[in-house]
């Protein structure tokens, strides 16, 4: 069922236009890349604060309040551009194992964010973070690096 949906998606007129156009695909990919920088840079800054490597004197909640809206907006742009890029090559991505790994990592990172991360952002004004918060920061950082790596590998199978 999912595969026939991919076939249908790939054959829509706009997906065909992205695939066959000279500039549509690279343009979407460039926007995907720019918003990825915004997303990962904002997330990593907060991760490094939680892990205790940077910005130690900034209250965590203040930092989170400034960085997370940016990360969320960038995530939205990545989702939209990513969907269009996916549509243009849906059937080959359906069988690409790195695409699958990337999606799993994103789902884990998003779930992790809502379940654990939001609570971890409560430790304010503490120079030495509790071990749990440090682990949270490190884990989130590793997850997003994994997403970038898996994404890059999609093109090499």
């Amino acid at each position, binding site marked *: 069922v999912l595969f026939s949906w991919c076939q249908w998606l790939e054959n829509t007129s706009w997906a065909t236009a992205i695939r066959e156009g000279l500039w549509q695909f690279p343009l979407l990919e*460039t926007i995907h890349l720019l918003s*990825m920088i915004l997303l990962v*840079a904002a997330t990593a800054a907060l991760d490094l604060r939680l892990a205790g490597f940077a910005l130690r004197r900034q209250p965590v909640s203040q930092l989170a309040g400034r960085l997370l809206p940016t990360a969320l907006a960038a995530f939205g742009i990545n989702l939209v551009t990513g969907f269009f890029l996916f549509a243009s090559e849906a059937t080959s991505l359906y069988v690409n194992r790195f695409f699958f790994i990337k999606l799993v990592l994103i789902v884990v990172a998003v779930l992790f964010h809502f379940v654990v991360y939001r609570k971890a952002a409560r430790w304010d004004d503490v120079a030495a973070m509790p071990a749990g918060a440090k682990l949270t920061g490190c884990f989130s950082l590793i997850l997003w690096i994994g997403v970038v790596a898996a994404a*890059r590998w999609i093109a090499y199978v």
Partner: protein
Amino acid sequence: MWSSFCHWIQHTPVGTAVGGSDWAFPAIETVHLLGMILLVGSVATFDLRLLGFLMPRQSVSRLAGRLLPGAWVGFSVMAVTGTLLFASDAIRKYGPNPVFPIKMLLIFLAGVNMLIFHSGVYRRVENWDDAPVTPLRAKVAGCCSLLLWTGVITAGRWIGFA
């Protein structure tokens, strides 16, 4: 001259090793991307402060002291990984690529912009360090920097399609 340089670099041990491996290229490209996140994330944050969009109460010189070392680490990572990626397929793909010189030119212009900023308006930063509204020349520098680095990324992405 250029083509003999491309031949030389692709035939160095490193060039043949990266070019002949299945996993080295995507691995190095991933590190190249992570360096880019560090470089552009740091530079853009500083540029946005110069333009007045972010952290108006942070002193400019203090922000520069905290962000710019990260930018240099990111730049170094990109320069090293970028050279390796170039060496892996210099003769056929990157040497003759029409977009590659555009990317190099944009990086050069970003460097010139940075030099003009640091040897110009930033030398008297103590006069406007804590001002939420920065001088016009600092705003121009921030704006040029944002546009140039966006151009570098766009050109970088286009190399693969040219």
